[in-house]
């Protein structure tokens, strides 16, 4: 029983990482109705920018803010420069561009900052908080910030003019254009916000997994899984999905005999796919009515 509680707590702590990333995934999905495979690498790159700023002696929270602003602008510029010229190309061509961006960011980060792991500071410290140190100060802080970002996103999409326009632009570009929404700008802004959320995720994740160019490789998959499980249209669902993935994975690894420990990730993914088969839009996603 003790192990069970410990694994659940540890799962929640790790789930916080996935929840963070899942939020970024939902953000980009709201903007372009697709998953961006380069998102993890973009978040990693933002984190390196933050690390560089810290190395130059800029105080933590200032570096934090600066990185978010840089990522916001960077994401916007990236969309406007790389994707605008081919906005009519098929979806698969866009996906290939995501893959290209993935390769570029990964390779650039390795070239500039090399591949050795770097410790990343946490403003919350690492002192054990409760549960015998299972959830440390940093993990607790990370979960709180994730929830704050969640609230901001929720309010943004629900109550602000720009947020509503962004959703309209993604859901139905033609109609959005007719009501005077500048679809292109909205898409660019969506990218900017997604990379800003990604930057927050990266900065929060780096103290746990250490900073290096490949740090997001697998976390992005967990983020996808969490977001898809919770429902891509629901930021709250995505966060909950992230935590669920963390807990399920730990329990699978601990309690399934013979193959559990070796197949922790595949088992978690299998469960998610099973859920999707019965609830194809995720646990909290909205049903989209298909038109003929």
């Amino acid at each position, binding site marked *: 029983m003790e192990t069970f509680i410990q694994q659940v707590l540890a799962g929640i702590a790790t789930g916080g990482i996935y929840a963070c990333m899942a939020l970024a995934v939902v953000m980009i999905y709201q903007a372009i109705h697709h998953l961006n495979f380069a998102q993890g690498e973009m978040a990693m790159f933002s984190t390196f920018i933050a690390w560089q700023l810290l190395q130059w002696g800029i105080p933590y929270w200032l570096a934090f803010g600066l990185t978010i602003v840089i990522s916001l602008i960077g994401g916007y510029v990236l969309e406007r420069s790389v994707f605008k010229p081919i906005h009519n*190309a098929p979806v*698969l061509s866009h996906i290939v*561009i995501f*893959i290209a961006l*993935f390769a570029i960011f990964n390779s650039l980060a390795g070239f500039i900052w090399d591949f050795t792991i770097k410790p990343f500071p946490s403003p919350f410290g690492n002192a054990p908080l409760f549960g015998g140190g299972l959830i440390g100060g940093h993990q607790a802080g990370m979960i709180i910030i994730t929830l704050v970002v969640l609230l901001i996103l929720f309010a943004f999409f629900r109550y602000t003019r720009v947020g509503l326009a962004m959703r309209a632009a993604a859901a139905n570009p033609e109609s959005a254009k007719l009501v005077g929404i500048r679809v292109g700008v909205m898409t660019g802004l969506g990218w900017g916000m997604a990379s800003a959320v990604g930057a927050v995720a990266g900065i929060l994740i780096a103290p746990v997994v250490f900073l290096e160019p490949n740090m997001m490789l697998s976390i992005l998959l967990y983020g996808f899984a969490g977001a898809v499980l919770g429902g*891509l249209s629901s930021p709250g669902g995505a966060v909950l999905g992230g935590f669920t993935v963390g807990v399920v994975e730990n329990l699978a690894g601990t309690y399934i005999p013979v193959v559990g420990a070796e197949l922790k990730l595949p088992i978690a*993914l299998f469960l998610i796919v*099973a859920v*999707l088969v019965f609830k194809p839009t995720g646990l909290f996603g909205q049903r989209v009515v298909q038109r003929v």
Partner: protein
Amino acid sequence: MTVQQEEVSAVEARQEQQARSVSAATISSLVVLAALVLCPFFISGFQTFQLNLMLIYAIAIMGLNLLTGFNGQFSLGHGAFYAIGAYTAAILIDTFGVSYVWTLPAAGVICFVSGFLFGLPALRLEGVYLALATFALAVATPQMLKLSILEHWTGGVQGIVIRKPKAPFDLPLSQDQWLYFFTLFVGLLLYWAARNMVKSRSGRAIMAIRDNPLAARSMGVNVALYKSLTFGVSALFTGIAGALGAIVIQFVAPDSFTFVLSVALLVGLVVGGVGWLPGAIVGGAFIVFVPNIAEEISKGLSGAMYGLMLILLIYVMPTGAGGLIRTVTDRLTRR
């Protein structure tokens, strides 16, 4: 000239155009084929080996194309079927001493069944959900391959080393040349099968599902069955490619089949042209040669170079080589 006559002559002109472009297509296919057959006699063994890899990836891409290009289902996990095919071949050769030739049908059958079974739950998933499910498959593959309970057959983390076959009947061919022609033969056979399948009644049903699933269903197409079958056939192609890959590389290990392979196949598909079967060759060439070119330019930044080349390529041909060729021939014939 009356209006009618004008129409008739317009139709005739169009038919003529079509005939011209068909014959142009036939001629260019023959030229490509001749080049593929003659190449190994003028290049080194190593280059033949590279071309062989290109053909193998092309076969795998062809399989993916049947699924994505013609049926509209998305897969980021075809590396898994490639791996199943490769391991089937390696285990049959290593443990059971089966001749390499017979491992291909075996790999095909096993992959067809696994593809069909995977296609069943995938029926209920679309778009990004299917992308996630297939991507999960790709990520899980290496972990399944090294499972300790299967180690007896798979060799676990060490993988399996196999022997490269020699040319039979005392043919005056080196091992590389023989395997190249073997792959070419299998590839042509599969290409012929794929073309016929696409042109057949079933092929039209498959494409109808892609274009409008609801309409297809209302026309009496069994959507679920056809989708799963397409998944199976697609996996069959890719699995045979995997088996060929194992024979040519002489080695399989979990690290050979990471998600990078699945991503590479997808990139190859898009670069070659979604929904255009011959594009597979272009895609195969991209997978084999472009990383080498990127490395030539800059070793430290090879990933970035690869990414840049990929972006440029998509700018030049947003719908892949297939789209480019279609545009060019349209322009030429319209003249």
